[in-house]
């Protein structure tokens, strides 16, 4: 735990409303360096550092930056700040505490790929983040660092802050484009991919907030430095969101690949409630459950994939053994039924049918064949849905049933709640 935060270093120290204070805390040094390097060198650095997208899909940022840079204009850069995955709050803390860093990241990305218009799309339920980022953008315009020039270089760039309006699906990149275009947030069919056909039908670089702010220390210190943190196949610093039954919930910055044990017991101070760890939900509602047996896992994209789990957006929700796991699953199923956009049948119908079966489970009224039915609905959503929402809507439920010793004969999770004898006595 000797790690010194990089991405969050300024938070709590810098005045988030002041451009001058940002500069006094080292702000825009990265952009200065980026302008000296030039677009090709920046893209090389991002590629060599092997930055994997922090929005959840772990796509190599360098490949996207390169692809967009070689496309003809007009093209766009979009910062994905829709952050609606349950359990995720990292981008909000960046935007509220150090909004200029996001603006600087967007400028560097736009300059690198040759875009002259960028958007920052922030979820509607983040009014303070919206105010702070808008203020940061305005301050840059007033200082003459946006518009006709960036910093002191002639390079036309406009940044527009967009406010979401309550739709988890608009975090999906193509649904987000539709939303900026003034439409319902229906994901598009891919291919074509955003790097070729994105916002307004033009080549578009879309990255998560955390991915973009990684560019700042990266251009200053270079790829070798970046790769000293975490495993080579997914290096760099990482923001983890701790919540649930944990002593110190909150944002943790640590090297990629920190163990789950470290996050919960060292950073997070251990388990509350019964004090005994029952399970952990990684990656949010779209993520996967793991158990106390998995505490030694390294929290990076590759290591988690190996154990049929996912890092997603860095969510770590902790459950002690006293939790009513069925009530938890009901909320997850409800979330997806509420947030399905309704475009494609597997998810439009499947999230509703999944919710109905989970409601029977939660009410101890499972019917014979229900678990088989649930698994077929889940498999159909995973296999046949258009986008990641439907494809992951069964993931947490599947892994809970698989890992938490669900006993179909009693309808209980052996790992959670009072021992089943007690439950029967109460009934």
């Amino acid at each position, binding site marked *: 735990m000797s790690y010194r935060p990089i991405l969050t270093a300024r938070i709590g120290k810098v005045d988030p409303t002041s451009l001058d204070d940002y500069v006094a805390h080292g702000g825009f040094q990265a952009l200065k360096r980026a302008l000296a390097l030039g677009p090709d060198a920046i893209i090389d650095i991002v590629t060599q550092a092997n930055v994997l997208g922090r929005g959840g899909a772990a796509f190599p940022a360098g490949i996207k930056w390169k692809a967009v840079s070689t496309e003809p204009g007009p093209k766009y850069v979009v910062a994905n700040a829709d952050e*609606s995955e349950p359990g995720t*709050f990292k981008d909000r803390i960046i935007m509220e505490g150090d909004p200029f860093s996001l603006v600087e990241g967007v400028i560097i990305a736009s300059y690198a790929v040759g875009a002259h218009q960028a958007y920052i799309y922030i979820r*509607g339920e983040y*009014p303070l983040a919206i105010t702070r980022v808008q203020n940061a953008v305005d301050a840059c315009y007033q200082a003459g660092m946006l518009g006709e020039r960036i910093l002191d270089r002639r390079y036309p760039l406009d940044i527009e802050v967009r406010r979401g309006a309550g739709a988890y699906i608009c975090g999906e990149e193509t649904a987000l484009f539709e939303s900026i275009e003034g439409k319902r947030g229906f994901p598009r069919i891919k291919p074509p991919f955003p790097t070729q056909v994105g916002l307004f039908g033009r080549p578009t670089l879309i990255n998560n907030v955390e991915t973009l702010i990684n560019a700042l220390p990266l251009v200053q210190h270079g790829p070798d430095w970046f790769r000293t943190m975490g495993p080579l196949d997914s290096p760099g610093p990482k923001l983890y969101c701790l919540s*649930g039954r944990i002593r110190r*919930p909150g944002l943790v910055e640590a090297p990629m690949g920190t163990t789950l044990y470290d996050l919960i017991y060292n950073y997070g101070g251990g388990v509350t409630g019964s004090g005994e760890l029952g399970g952990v939900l990684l990656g949010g*509602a779209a993520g996967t459950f793991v158990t106390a047996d998995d505490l030694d896992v390294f929290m990076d994209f590759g290591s988690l994939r190996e154990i049929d789990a996912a890092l997603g957006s860095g969510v770590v929700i902790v459950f002690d053994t006293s939790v009513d796991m069925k009530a*938890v699953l009901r909320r*997850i199923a409800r979330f997806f039924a509420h947030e399905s956009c309704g475009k494609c049948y597997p998810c439009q119908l499947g999230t509703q049918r999944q919710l109905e079966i989970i409601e029977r489970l939660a009410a101890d009224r499972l019917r014979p064949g229900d678990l088989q039915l649930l698994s077929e609905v889940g498999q159909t959503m995973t296999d046949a849905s258009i986008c990641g929402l439907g494809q992951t809507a069964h993931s947490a439920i599947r892994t809970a049933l698989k890992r938490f010793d669900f006993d179909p004969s009693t309808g209980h999770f052996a790992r959670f709640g009072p021992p089943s004898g007690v439950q029967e006595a109460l009934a």
Partner: protein
Amino acid sequence: MKDATHTLTPQQLAAVETVLARYQGKGRSALLPCLHEVQAITGWLDPEICAAIGQSLRVPLVQIHEVIEFYTLFYNRPVGRRIIRVCDDVPCYLAGSEAIIRACATRLRVDEGGGTTEDGAWTLEIHPCLGRCEQAPFLMIDDEGYGHVTPEQIADLLGGKP
């Protein structure tokens, strides 16, 4: 259909007109920002206001309607003058959101699934994860957030009225 235009004050109407003048001819991509700005003045979006928005932006009316229908923060029917959104997703549930919701529903005399008070002062919504999981249980009243709330605080937050 209720027509809210008549209940708008002259000041509100003037404010809407100023906004729409600014959005004149801006097209579909300005729709969400425009809806946000207008709704901030009017509380909710009625057919007449939507028709005026359509005319200003030059967007077909049904496309405005279906956008309002899609996004949970836009309203095409009357809502309370203040909106309280309580998160009940996993981290907030683990921190006791059920008791918070019960306290709000009891206090406002609306359903625990959400609803608007008879006098139109408040709307209670059970909202998907609000992204303040480290401050669970969490709720928002309009644009103001409240973390680590307790059921005992609810009466205060909802004002003196029983």
